[in-house]
């Protein structure tokens, strides 16, 4: 609200003498002067901004970063290489040593000269950084006397031996190169003998070994020296030559041979892969058997049923041994750190103890300990005091650490575990349950019934798993036995494969006979079919 408005409201006469405030505002809003343009010219353009092209805007750049340090000077400096003995001096770029923190005023004069002087002695000390890579090859050296005494060979003159040793030194014991460049010009009228790589190696190794033995008597050699010595003396040129000949033959194999080898290799790989999955399954099984199933009823049930399932398998004994060993191991561990075993791995024998230990810490009762194995029950809290164990059972009062969200039918817990992912597995589960005479529909899904059922189902799962492995093991054994038979017979390849195929068929047949084993057997028979095909093609 301006003063004028005030006056209007109050009915005061307007102040004509005052300059209209508008004008003043105008001056305030005036366009700022363009840079690089005369005031008069700028005024000509009035209020409107001139077209962009007329304004020469000075672009604003980011500010230069402020560096604390000075730019390090580099110099084209001469250097020598210690690996050379001719003092060749070449130049390269290297960093000037940064000037020592000198008084600021001195930098301009001394800063230039001083570091160069500083650096020179240091450079000499350090040497050329790549000189250390100049590693000469060590070759045996001998005096003429030693040669005459020990190194004589009717096939070699001293000159030729010397020549060989220089070549070996020059080419860093790369025998292929030494052989390639070997071109001894005999000084006598005798023509130079043609030398193979094995000839050269044999001569060189002999000389090396004798020189070594001369310098250090065998009795006073260190371990590594002696092993070098025995290595040098054990070179066998004849064997080496025949090995080379074999290698050469290998090089000239035909495509068909190479193909055969690669199919055999892939076959082998497949077998190995199968082996490793089998191993993994076994390990998995062992782990499963370790799982804490504390209640004695399930354990005995498992033992009973499982025992029946395993009665024919030799693997059971092995499994048992392994379990025993593991158990012992864990006991040991418990001795070292009592009560520290991770809950998931607590073996059956220990479970109750550990649980009891924990419960006693939580000041709970023995009933909660009985509920504990399922892992779902809680540490008994103070609210528990009101109900006696009996009445809490009666009124189905349970305690949970955490409740899962949503509502569930208790009966779901009885029906869901019966259905597995695959139909075959479901079938198998049903068969086991039928065998155990568990009815399809269980009457009252109380907490305890559900718990018992879950425990039972865990047992069933283990049982099925064990059966599966057992069957695999059996077929494996049969294959092995068949192989053994063939080997003892010492028959040809064709026969072997026939038997192999027979075995496969066997397994398949049996698999179909037995309930629910078809899948595993077919896995084996696939391999059989493959090998079958191969023999045909």
């Amino acid at each position, binding site marked *: 609200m301006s003063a004028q408005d005030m006056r209007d409201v109050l009915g005061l006469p307007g102040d004509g003498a005052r300059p209209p405030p508008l004008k003043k505002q105008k001056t305030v809003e005036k366009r700022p002067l363009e840079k690089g343009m005369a005031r008069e010219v700028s005024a000509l353009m009035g209020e409107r901004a001139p077209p962009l092209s007329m304004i020469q805007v000075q672009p604003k750049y980011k500010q230069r970063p402020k560096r604390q*340090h000075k*730019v*390090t000077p*580099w110099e084209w400096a001469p250097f020598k*290489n210690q*690996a*050379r003995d*001719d*003092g*060749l*001096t*070449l*130049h*390269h*770029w290297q*960093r000037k040593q940064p000037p020592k923190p000198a008084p600021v005023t001195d930098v301009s004069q001394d800063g230039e000269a001083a570091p160069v002087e500083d650096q020179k002695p240091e450079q000499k000390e350090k040497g*050329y*950084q*790549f*000189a250390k*890579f*100049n590693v000469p090859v060590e070759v045996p050296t001998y005096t003429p006397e030693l040669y005459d005494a020990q190194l004589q060979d009717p096939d070699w003159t001293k000159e030729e031996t010397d020549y060989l040793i220089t070549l070996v030194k*020059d*080419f*860093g014991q*790369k*025998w*292929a*190169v030494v*052989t*390639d*460049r070997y071109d001894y010009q005999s000084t006598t009228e005798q023509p130079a003998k043609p030398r193979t*790589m094995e000839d050269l190696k044999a001569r060189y190794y002999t000389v090396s070994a004798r020189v070594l033995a001369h310098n250090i008597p065998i009795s006073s050699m260190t371990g590594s020296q002696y092993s070098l010595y025995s290595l040098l003396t054990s070179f066998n040129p004849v064997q080496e030559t025949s090995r*080379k000949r074999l*290698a*050469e033959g*290998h*090089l*000239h*194999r*035909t*495509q068909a*041979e*190479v193909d055969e080898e690669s199919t055999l290799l892939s076959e082998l790989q497949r077998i190995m892969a199968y082996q490793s999955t089998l191993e993994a399954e076994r390990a998995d099984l062992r782990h499963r058997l370790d799982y804490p199933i504390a209640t004695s009823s399930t354990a005995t049930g498992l033992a009973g049923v499982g025992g029946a399932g395993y009665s024919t398998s030799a693997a059971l004994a092995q499994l048992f041994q392994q379990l025993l060993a593991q158990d012992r191991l864990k006991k040991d561990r418990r001795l070292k750190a009592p009560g520290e075993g991770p809950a998931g791995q607590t073996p059956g024998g220990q479970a109750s103890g550990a649980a009891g230990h924990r419960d006693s810490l939580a000041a709970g009762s023995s009933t909660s300990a009985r509920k504990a194995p399922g892992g779902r029950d809680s540490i008994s809290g103070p609210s528990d005091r009101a109900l006696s164990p009996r009445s809490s059972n009666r009124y189905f009062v349970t305690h949970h650490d955490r409740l899962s969200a949503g509502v569930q039918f208790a009966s779901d817990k009885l029906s869901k575990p019966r259905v597995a992912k695959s139909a075959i597995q479901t079938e198998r589960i049903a068969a086991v349950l039928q065998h155990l005479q568990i009815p399809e529909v269980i009457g009252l899904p109380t907490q305890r019934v559900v718990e018992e059922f879950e425990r039972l189902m865990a047992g069933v799962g283990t049982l099925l798993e064990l059966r599966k492995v057992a069957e695999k093991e059996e077929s494996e054994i049969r294959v092995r036995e068949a192989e053994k038979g063939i080997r003892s017979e010492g028959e040809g390849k064709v026969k072997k494969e026939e038997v192999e195929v027979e075995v496969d068929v066997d397994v398949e047949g049996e698999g179909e006979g037995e309930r629910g084993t078809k899948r595993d057997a077919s896995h084996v028979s696939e391999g059989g079919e493959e090998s079958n095909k191969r023999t045909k093609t």
Partner: protein
Amino acid sequence: MNSSVPPAAQEYAGDEINALVLDPGSNTIRAGFAGEDTPKSVVPSFYGVPQSSDAQSQYLFGENALHNPLTHMDVRNPYSSDSVVEDWDVASKLWEYSITSRLTGTRPTPAAKNGLNDPAEVKDEDGDMAMEGVEELEKPMAENPLLVSEPAWNPQKAREKTMEIAMEDWGVPAFWMGKTGMLAAFASGKPTALVIDIGANTTSVTPLLDGFVLRKGVQKSNLAGNYISSQIRLQFSQMTPSVPLVPHYMVKSKQPVDAGASSNATYMQFATPPTESYRKLEEERVLTSFKESIVQVWPGPGKLDGASGQIPGQTNADAVKTLPPKPFEMPDGWNQVFGLERFRVVEGLFSPQGALSDAENPVPDAKHTIPAMVQAALNAVDVETRPLLLNNVVLTGGGSLVEKLAERVQAELSALYPNPRVRVHTTSSATDRKYGAWIGGSVLASLGTFHQMWISKKEYEEHGSGIVEKRCKS
């Protein structure tokens, strides 16, 4: 990266000493500074000799002078058909030109060497130390160590001569020579390799073990770039109607014409036409562009005339005929599509039966084809190195740029050696293959560990040029 932090030298083991690298080939001479990734200076190995003059200083070097259609200019090449230097006077001038024209700046030939002040000893008798220094600097490369490449079969005389030129005429402080095959293998990072180098005059196969050439295995033949050119010429003349090969300098202007129709162009009129050798050089440029854009190798498996693997009763050539042909236009506008022909002209590198021949162009020797040379090279080396070499086949040289050549070599060698794995390594970059030997030299000469390999001026003075045999053993 902060520029004030020095690069960790150990990281790449480099130490740049301003060395020069010279890769003189029979087609082009490549020169540049060690440590760079392409040669700065690529100069044709051909030179022009104006007939009017007999002084050597009148020789014409470099692209610009060479491709100018002067009357009476002879075009020559100082290399023999085996890619070794024949004419040393010109070769050294040409090399010096390739270095000084782009790299070290044009400095006049030192007064002591240009022939005008021959009694140079007189000056030395003054015993003026400062004078010596000045004279040294006058030499064109007094500050640059020099690495020169050479073919694996370079005779000892030629090596010594090269060193003399470098030391005496150019005044290099240090010198080294390496075989092209070895250098090309270094460029692809393989100290053990079987290098197939297809140049202009020669194709060579060089087995390498740990950076050393296995000399007994080295193979060479003339079935290389120039051979392909002559096959193309033959193919052109054998086609109906035959293909007119008109180089660029002949054409003043041209009009587009239909495929196969005779050209509609106005030609340059010369009072005295340029020499035959000049025309040949210019034709070669057209042929090179034909090689670059049209020529292709049958990629295998099998030979071009071999039975087709897909369709029984047919050859691979029949399969090729069904592919769409490629068009090529001559400088005068004449154009045509090429089908089987573009495969035919390189088949001679792989099978003598596939090559075109007539009275002047005999069928090549079977042992000069690439597969035969590889076989010969492998047979000459130790059994245990063979699989290593086959696993590291390196293709290099300008001629190896022909399309699908690497595939064909792979197929041929895999068929010959089914057992050890054959792997042909090629870089996808054309420059890397064209300048393979130069790049390898560039890598080598910029390595810090290479420093001890140089032959210094002092060593040269002590032992003479014979030292090159002792020290450059690669």
